[in-house]
């Protein structure tokens, strides 16, 4: 560990065992299937209790005081808010004219906005359930304002093809941390967007560059006047006629596909780098009063976490394939004995469904136990604190907050640990 050279007082460590986490997640995956997902509140709480209580800062561990029942209750309240909202969107969609036509966009924007609102409030819930040395963390600020800011930033990031993303992260993180406190110690975020921008620029070019090349090649190869006529005419054979009207179109498509593939490969290869850079930048930007965090997270460690995921996923795939063989054999026998029967149909559909669910849950569990666990561990172990003497003089402030919005985040599927 890079932090082992630091004095104990300024050290942040993660004490959790990967084996415990594996057991927790795999038991949780089975129970998720058996309860069709209802168990997620208990699993999420267990995961947080494990991660929090094994994160040691300057000799003392964090305490998570939230409970699964709070999450369930918050979820039920959120559902009762969302159902009339969905019904409203449905009725709007039936309106003839502009409102009806734009209802899909309206619903997307409305739910996106609500999702950002929920993200902010869920963070507030998590912080107020985080206790360290007998004092709570707290978050004030307005979730509405945060959601407005986040919406505007997402629009800007979309319009600039992602170039504004570092500045979005910095701005939103500043808002969150400005309204975060530990006891009477105010939080602050000092990470600068342009630093992240400079670090990420090359990666952006490597991924978006091929995409832009592909688009420009397609645009150049098409005679737009003829194209409009062709598309307007419509029919089964649009593609054939487009190709007939644009002789260079075939090779342009081949080139575009090649570029798309290049962009996808680049994105997959560079994603761990991107994640490591963002995580280190974020950890290093956090501070509470004169208490500063600094991270020395290394990119190769994050790559190691992803390699571990790829390796386990490969093993799991082999096991899955071996397990599928006897199942397919049994199905083949059934097909032979009772061809075209309902039982055979049910067995094959049920088998495919079970296989799909096992595979998806398996990969997701492996991902969380490898990449998810390692990122938490690496980030914690990479942090060095300065200004630690302050830790003895902080005073209590703030109470617990409502779990409602964490439920909203869950209902909108934007929750995370």
């Amino acid at each position, binding site marked *: 560990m890079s932090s082992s050279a630091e004095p104990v007082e300024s050290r942040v460590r993660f004490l959790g065992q990967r084996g415990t986490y594996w057991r927790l997640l795999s038991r949780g995956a089975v129970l998720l299937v*058996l309860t069709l997902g209802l168990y997620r509140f208990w699993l999420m709480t267990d995961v947080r209790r494990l991660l929090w209580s094994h994160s040691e800062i300057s000799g003392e561990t964090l305490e998570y005081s939230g409970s699964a029942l709070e999450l369930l209750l918050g979820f039920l309240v959120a*559902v009762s808010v969302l159902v009339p909202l969905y019904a409203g969107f*449905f009725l709007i969609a039936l309106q003839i004219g502009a409102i009806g036509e734009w209802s899909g966009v309206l619903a997307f924007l409305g739910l996106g906005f609500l999702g950002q609102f929920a993200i902010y409030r869920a963070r507030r819930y998590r912080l107020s359930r985080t*206790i360290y040395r007998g004092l709570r963390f707290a978050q004030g600020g307005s979730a509405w304002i945060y959601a407005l800011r986040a919406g505007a930033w997402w629009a800007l990031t979309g319009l600039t093809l992602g170039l504004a993303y570092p500045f979005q992260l910095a701005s939103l993180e500043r808002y969150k941390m400005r309204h975060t406190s530990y*006891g009477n110690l105010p939080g602050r975020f000092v990470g600068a967007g342009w630093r992240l921008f400079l670090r990420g620029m090359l990666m952006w070019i490597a991924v978006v560059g091929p995409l832009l090349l592909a688009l420009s090649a397609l645009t150049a190869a098409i005679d737009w006047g003829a194209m409009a006529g062709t598309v307007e005419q419509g029919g089964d054979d649009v593609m054939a006629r487009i190709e007939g009207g644009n002789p260079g179109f075939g090779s342009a498509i081949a080139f575009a596909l090649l570029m798309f593939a290049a962009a996808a490969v680049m994105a997959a290869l560079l994603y761990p780098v991107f994640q490591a850079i963002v995580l280190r930048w974020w950890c290093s930007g956090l501070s509470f009063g004169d208490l500063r965090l600094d991270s020395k997270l290394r990119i190769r460690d994050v790559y190691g976490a992803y390699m571990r995921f790829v390796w386990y996923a490969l093993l799991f795939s082999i096991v899955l394939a071996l397990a599928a063989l006897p199942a397919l054999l049994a199905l083949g026998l059934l097909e032979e004995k009772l061809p075209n029967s309902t039982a055979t149909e049910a067995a094959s559909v049920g088998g495919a469904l079970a296989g799909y669910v096992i595979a*998806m849950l398996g990969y*997701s569990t492996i991902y969380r136990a490898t990449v998810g666990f390692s990122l938490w561990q690496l980030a914690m172990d990479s942090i060095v604190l300065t200004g630690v003497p302050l830790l003895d003089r902080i005073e*209590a402030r703030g109470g617990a907050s409502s779990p409602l919005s964490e439920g909203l985040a869950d209902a909108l599927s934007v929750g995370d640990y």
Partner: protein
Amino acid sequence: MSEAYAINTGAGVFFDGRTSARHPVHVMLRPEQLEIESEDGRLLAEWPYREIESLNAPESVLRLGRRGNAVLERLVVSDPALATALGERAVQLDRSGRVGRRQRAAVIGAGMLATLSLVLLAWLAVPSLAARLTPYVPLSLERKLGAAIDMQVRAALDTHHRGAQFECGLEPGKRPTKLALGRLLQRLESVAALGMPLRIAVVRRSEPNAIALPGGQIYVFQGLVDQADTPDQLAGVLAHEIGHVAHRDGTRAVLHGAGLSFLFGMMLGDFVGGGAVVIAVRTLLQSSYSRDTEAAADAYGVQLMRKAGGDGRALGVMLGKIGGATEPGMRILRDHPDTKARIAAIERLAPAGGGGMLLAAQDWAALRTICKD
């Protein structure tokens, strides 16, 4: 017991909940309570054993708080002997974890029961709830719903093949064919007395099929007209579709689908890979329900044909010919028992050889050319 009680004092770390300061303390186990004393001998806290609770901490450490305390006082005990002695005095600390495991088992049991009851709700209560609510949906809303579905149906079914129009018989020269179609519909509609106007169109699709939308729009596919040998065979399928409109099956299906989406999209199924489970369960529940709906529409169709003076069995003949595929997505093989059962049910309802033709020969001849160039 005497051995366990040998330890009645030990070291710990105390946080008073007012500041973050770390206080090394002596913990003393008195008969009814534990006392927390600072190193210089000041009494910092007295906690009765029954009010102590164990809080989130790593395995090697016991973190204690006082139940119902607004101030977050915390006592951290790392000494295993002291932790054991505390566990014996305050059983709720659950040092063996047995109570925690039992509670978790109860949670899992309750969770599975809740899941089961939600699935039963989706299976039994949602269809009947949808059926009860359907009559209260105003017809104006049903027409709007139909218009919205109509747009989607047209977008999905219209292939624009060789630039031909989706709807047949719109050319000026095809007026007689449209009139013949209108007369056939009129024969049935006048008997049905639905309270909402029906609209009908033959559309350029080769499958032998017909669909009814909420609000009274019926689409007959060209393939059905091509396969019908008599006007009554076409009318039989039309009467079946009118049955769907009369029973407001489209609106009921939308309500049914919304109920299932609520239960299996929001309450249940929110886990990785759960999407496939949701779709499978919904399809299963909806298709088992739609079999009943089809049977009811068959019965309505037979009655309507008889009242209009047509051949009640013509629908069965047509079903036999096309293999029961009156609904998209339900194209079942011809020898499928479901189709045979439907034909048998129709034959039970309708006497053989009843009724005459619902359309004059020249109208029928005209109608058959509605999609021909």
